[in-house]
């Protein structure tokens, strides 16, 4: 019930949007979202209501945050390299 799912808006009609959840489309109410949303935006959805617009700059901020969190320990771990424990020990 408390499952929050992000999806992308494909159509807006008044206070209702059609949102694509990685292939599944559902109608979503926009009454609670605190920013204007348009087609192409990502939204976080709980029990049929969008509760947050996820802006592209917010996604970029998250990726930058992950980069900062891992900068030190990523050395020697090339992106895409197999995990260390996948090698025979």
């Amino acid at each position: 019930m408390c499952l929050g799912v992000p999806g992308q808006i494909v159509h807006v009609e008044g206070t209702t949007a059609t949102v694509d959840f990685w292939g599944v489309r559902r109608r979503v109410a926009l009454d609670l979202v605190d920013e204007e949303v348009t087609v192409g935006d990502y939204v976080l959805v709980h029990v049929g209501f969008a509760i947050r617009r996820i802006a592209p700059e917010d996604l970029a901020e998250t990726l930058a945050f992950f980069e900062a969190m891992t900068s030190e320990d990523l050395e020697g771990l090339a992106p895409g390299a197999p995990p260390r424990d996948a090698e025979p020990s």
Partner: protein
Amino acid sequence: VTAPAKLEFRDVARGRALQARLDRAMARAGRTVTVMHVCGSHEQAIARYGLRARFPSNLRVQMGPGCPVCVTDAPEIDACVALAERGLHVLTYGDMLRVPGRERSLEDARAAGARVDVLYAATQAVEIARATPEPVVFFATGFETTAVATAAILLADPPPNLFVLSAHKWVPSAMEVVASVPDSKIEGYLAAGHAATITGYGVFEPFVARHRRPVVVAGFEPLDLLSGLVLLVEQVLEAKAEVVNAFPRCVTREGNRRALDALFRVFETSDGEWRGIARVPAGDLRLRPELAAHDATVRFAAELASTPAFTERASASECRCGRIMMGLERPTDCRLFGKQCRPEAPVGACMVSTEGVCRIWHEHGVDVAERLPEEGSP
């Protein structure tokens, strides 16, 4: 940014780097550290991505009262069962059907002929009520994220035959209770990113000031969770107590004002029993008097008052859900776990819901959930 973003949140190399940072911090710690998350979706993510088996052996990550189904009190279920058995059409979220009341579940009532239907979206309750002249009871459960949806339908000119039986709960109040347990070993809290999307992370500032324990708000992708844990554990080990937001793409300090305004126009907090835990001051969300016309406890007061007194199931007395949700024990500490208490025959609510920690451990395998690497193993 579409699919690639989703995959970047699961980047294996960065996940390994975060694990290495966590390992390093805990190796320096030289002692056991216990932290708590308060969200079933966090436990699901930990299980799904196999994170628990890779946690440092001296780090304990407990799940707290983060499953709304699990903390819905038995008398709340009984009240809804009573209305269903009196012939009222009851709507609720799917997880609620199998939660045992003191005698029966909504599923039992349905098997005996009661009309109980499952909703996936709060707006469906309005659609169903509009299609009939009969009264419809929406058994509304969940934390902040679903409470705002109930508020929204009640603010949007709902049909007069729609009545809400609210079992909504306010998580920050339960964190207060958990943090106040005298023998609690919890040194830091991982707060649920989606609930904090509504409340804002500012809601945790008084908690941190009062209890001198750090709170980190985290999301639900593997890198979100690991980043949150790293920032939480590092604070614990540095004896810091701050609120940190590790889910910036959804959470702000002030939260979603529009949703919060809707929530508190419709609900007010009141003291309430959380199943297995305690009486939680300001833990329940009940409808304001202005919404009495849609309040099932007002409209059906007579029916609810004549509800027969149920007796607690004998087997439930051995159930450890309460102590598990307080962070005092783990599912495997319970004698009933996987024996008398199984997903198909749950004794405690933690085994009913897919958001309950017992159910998650049972489904993903106790070995995976519980096994902790030996000291010094890779």
